[in-house]
């Protein structure tokens, strides 16, 4: 169980930071970055054998985390901010997945709320939201 929780947070952080970094590196459309990363992870978990819990949850957690990485630099520009948002996203996923399992848009919803939480607790007020 602890390993499952740990994997949630690892996937959240890796997904968010990877998408944020790749988005800045590629300078292409954010949808392409997020979709490409999610597609690769989903493909690995579709064709390879993993324990059921990981097969079901890891691609979803990763895809949701890439939404955090899609945040515009004008809104949230620091890695620390993205990291914090990913942690909050992980907490929300663990706490809410039983309630919202199967709802389309749930991952995007909690990703958006976690970014808003970070924006609210930031000291500086340069966001253009």
């Amino acid at each position, binding site marked *: 169980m602890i390993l499952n929780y740990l994997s949630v947070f690892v996937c959240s952080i890796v997904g968010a930071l990877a998408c944020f970094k790749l988005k800045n590196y590629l300078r292409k459309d954010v949808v392409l970055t997020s979709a490409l990363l999610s597609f690769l992870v989903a493909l690995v978990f579709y064709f390879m054998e993993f324990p059921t819990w990981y097969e079901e949850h890891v691609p979803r957690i990763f895809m949701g985390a890439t939404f955090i990485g*899609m945040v515009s630099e004008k*809104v949230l520009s620091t890695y620390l901010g993205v990291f914090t948002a990913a942690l909050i996203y992980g907490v929300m996923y663990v706490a809410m997945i039983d*309630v919202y399992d199967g709802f389309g848009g749930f991952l*995007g919803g909690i990703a958006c709320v976690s970014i808003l939480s970070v924006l609210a607790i930031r000291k500086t007020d340069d966001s253009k939201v």
Partner: protein
Amino acid sequence: MIKLRTAYRLLFFLLIALHLGLILVGIFQGDNYMAKLLIFTLVLLPTTVFYLYRAKAPNRLGYEKVTGLWIVIAASIITYYLNNDLLLGPTLAASSVALFASVFQFFFKNSKRYKIYINAVYCGAFVGMSSTMIVHNYVELLIASVVTGFIYIGTKYHLTGVGGKYGSIAFGGVAAAFFIFNLIR
């Protein structure tokens, strides 16, 4: 007849209600007390503070063209088919639809219209990620994607650049369809 300006304000409040409703239901329905406390302190309070003090209503009112609605509906149907009929799973289905659509950016480099529509594809794909336990058939999917499409059209200048915006919108559409069909049954 509601004026357009009032309609856009209502959509902005709908977006706020969606986020706060999502968190509140999570707090009240969850079994884990530690998780409830964490969501309350880490998420509900800051998000409410954000909406009370930081969120600025957009200084201009704008909407996507109605084509966005059709794209949302088409993307949701394709994703739902890949997800539940071909059993690819929600992540692979949504990401493959979005990836297929975003590959076209290399052919339409200077098209502003394309950039608008790629977001509509991703938004629709999120609706199609729903499982058959929540969205039971294509009629319910159609209602969910139409509601999503209308919210998508009206929230062009709301929360721009915040990741997960289109997911929130899709969640609103799916939740609305789920609520409507639960009332009917």
